[in-house]
């Protein structure tokens, strides 16, 4: 069980045509900007519709063009953390996280909120607004909001790119812990190679709209299949 992605989408002259699958592990989509990594996340979440293909998450078909299945975004249960985090500026930390707990009974929601806020080290900040938080705190609130509804997949669009190095390292560790706890497929988009190698169970290297190579980070870095992959991962070789 995990995530199976096989889709094709043409958008303003750009064609995305990718196939890959992961178990309940952390997969990193790695590649230069404009490769279609973010678009892949949007298609998995249901924010946009592929022209053709199939998306299956934990055995549930979310999209299948051959049988006309297209589960609407609201019912896909994907935890999505946007590049700019998309915290609601008019809501407190508490209300931002609670917003993700739609459908939970009031009591459950309250208990979960308290536990998550504790776990995500946001205690004492419940009544603060996003613009009063540091970068790392905003990240944690965005993650908590995405996770409180117990999503079946976690999609992260370069969420750590705006952080300084130390915080980024901390957040990576934090992400690994979260993954152990929630046991769901995590798709992380990045063009930071160190990040990719550090957190990934599996790495999928994107060319412009296609998959160049996928596998364990060590293998991809040591044995790039094409010159393009080699060029993308050569930073590590030099080290």
């Amino acid at each position, binding site marked *: 069980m995990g995530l199976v992605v096989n889709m094709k989408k043409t958008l303003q002259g750009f064609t995305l045509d990718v196939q890959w699958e992961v178990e309940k592990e952390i997969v990193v989509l790695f590649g230069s900007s404009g490769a279609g990594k973010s678009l892949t996340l949007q298609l998995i*979440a249901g924010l946009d519709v592929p022209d053709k293909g199939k998306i299956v998450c934990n055995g549930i078909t979310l999209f299948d063009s051959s049988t006309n299945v297209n589960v609407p975004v609201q019912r896909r*249960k994907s*935890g*999505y953390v946007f*590049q700019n985090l*998309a915290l609601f*500026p008019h809501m407190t930390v508490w209300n931002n996280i609670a917003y993700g707990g739609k459908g939970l009974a009031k009591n459950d929601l309250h208990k979960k909120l308290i536990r998550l806020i504790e776990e995500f080290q946001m205690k004492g900040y419940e009544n603060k607004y996003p613009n009063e938080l540091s970068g790392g705190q905003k990240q944690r609130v965005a993650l908590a909001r*995405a996770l409180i509804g117990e999503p079946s997949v976690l999609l992260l669009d370069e969420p750590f790119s705006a952080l300084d190095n130390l915080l980024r390292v901390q957040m990576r560790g934090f992400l690994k812990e979260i993954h152990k706890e929630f046991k769901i497929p995590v798709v992380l988009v990045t063009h930071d190679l160190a990040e990719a190698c550090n957190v990934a169970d599996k790495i999928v290297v994107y060319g412009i709209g296609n998959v160049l190579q996928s596998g364990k980070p060590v293998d991809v870095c040591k044995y790039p299949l094409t010159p393009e992959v080699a060029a993308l991962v050569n930073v590590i070789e030099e080290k």
Partner: protein
Amino acid sequence: MAFSMLLSLKVSAVATIFVLIFGIPVAYVLAMKRFKARELIDVFLMLPLVLPPTVTGYYLVILLGRHGIIGRYIYEWTGFSIMFTWHAATVASFVVSVPLMIRTARAAIESVDKSLIMASYTLGYGEVMTALKVTIPLARRGIIAGAVLSFARAIGEFGATLMLAGNVPGKTDTMPLAIYSFAAAGQWSEANNMVIILTVMSLAIIYVANRLSRQ
């Protein structure tokens, strides 16, 4: 004098409530949806800003007058005609001020960060809930500014009101109409007082609108 002031406030307040009820959904649809008739509706809704209010009022008479396209049926069924009532003044104020609301609110809704709306969708909320909990609350500054401008426009409404509601002393003579009557009758001191009151009120409204849109 006091009657005209209270009437103006009542007419403008009621008109502004309807401006909010009608203007927000229309602004939302124009801001968020792409459909064929969109530009056409947009142009049509801006018309009252450009036309002389007397022309807008003329159309309203054709529409709502006792023999009007719609007014005829209202009169047949209920025996009521809106002409020469404070309701007519309210309708006239609504029509000339609603474009201001739609313009301002639409711009505010369009400027809401799209990723916030998408985030709400991924968290399980449909379009209506997202509009109510995210999009419209985040556009509230523009919506409030639009409402204040609409109220100000309604307070100053003259031409369309004159056409549809007439200038009936003690019934439909809002402040601008009363000023006209005083001046026409040569009652300059009364006209003076009311002009000063209207000017001060307008200044206060503009001040409030500016503060709200800057906050």
